């Protein structure tokens, strides 16, 4: 049975946009990953943008989920860009030596889309 919480996935240009605004937990995270991959296949999207500006605490769990998503998307030929990281969060991540391996970051949605465009044209 699926939980009632859901992270909406929107289409923007030829990319997908998901804004995480509720706290992730194990089950929700798995469903989110599943939903994203299905959407990628269905919409033939070329890029994926995940907005985390609403997240106050980025812990190792969320980091792992994000890194996993980027990995999965990359297997399907899709580039992932994380947008909306807050300064204090980025400091914490660096202090604790957390690595966002293989993930692009951008300041905002617009710049994220631009990064995807640059990547596509390569």
């Amino acid at each position, binding site marked *: 049975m699926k939980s009632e919480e859901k992270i909406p996935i929107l289409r923007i240009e030829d990319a997908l946009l998901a804004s995480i605004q509720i706290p992730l937990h194990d089950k929700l995270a798995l469903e989110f990953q599943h939903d994203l991959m299905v959407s990628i296949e269905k919409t033939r999207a070329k890029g994926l943008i995940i907005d985390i500006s609403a997240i106050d605490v980025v812990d190792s769990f969320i980091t792992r989920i994000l890194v996993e998503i980027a990995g999965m998307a990359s297997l399907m030929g899709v580039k992932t860009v994380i*947008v909306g*990281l*807050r*300064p*204090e*969060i*980025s*400091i914490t*991540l*660096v*202090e604790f030596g957390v690595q*966002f391996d293989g993930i*692009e*970051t*951008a*300041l*905002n949605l617009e*710049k*994220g889309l631009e*990064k995807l465009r640059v990547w596509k044209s390569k």
Partner: protein
Amino acid sequence: MGAINADEYLHLLRSMRNFVAMLDTDGRVEFMNRASSGYAEEDIKGEFLWESPWFNRSEESKEEVKEAIEKALRGERTESEVTAFKKDGTPFPIIFNASPLRDDEGNIIGVVAEGKSITERKELEERLKETVEKLKASQEELSTPVTQIWEGILALPLIGVVDSYRAQRVMETLLNKIVETQSELVIIDVTGVASIDTEVAGHIMKTVQAANLLGARCVLTGIRPEVAQTMIHLGLDFERFATKRDMQEGLKFGLEQMGYEIRRKDSDTQD
């Protein structure tokens, strides 16, 4: 060298820069090498030292001197900072020492009191304090100079010593400014940084990584020859970001990244 006679002892004592007095077991002044600060020997001789005009103008000084002498009479040596007064009433700080005076058998037969004016030292201390305060204030102002020099480009000229505290401040200010101005490129200029050790390099690396996470790139400019040498010898990994010769090259690089082209207005006619 043979034994010196009593006269020579007296000369020796008289020529000393510091004040030395011999007190009896009650604390009265029996002998002193010389009077100073405007007093005549008669003003002081025979007085209890703490009741002498040097100290009798302040209860606190009297108390401290009396206590020191009592301690000396019990066999203790003391050293303290006491305020003395000149004849015209001007206070001046001295270091006051009191030690027991013993005979050949080791019996305490009096007290040796010494005084050394530390007016200059005090003044120096004050001046030093003021200077340090001033420096601190100006360093605060200088510590985090993040400016936007172009739309989307920030400049961070680092000057002077970068310690952990300052590095932290710089990092916070820079990251907030990146988000506030939505800037994609940061030029970190280290021309003014005298030396880069592992610690400083670590701070710079962290700042760069954090900026990267936000989605901004960093260019390091103005690395001095000696700094370049240290960095390579320390085996620091500075490959994560671009380095350019100076601020100008950094800005040019940034503008090119953003799709601008820099050339003279008349350059097409000349070629």
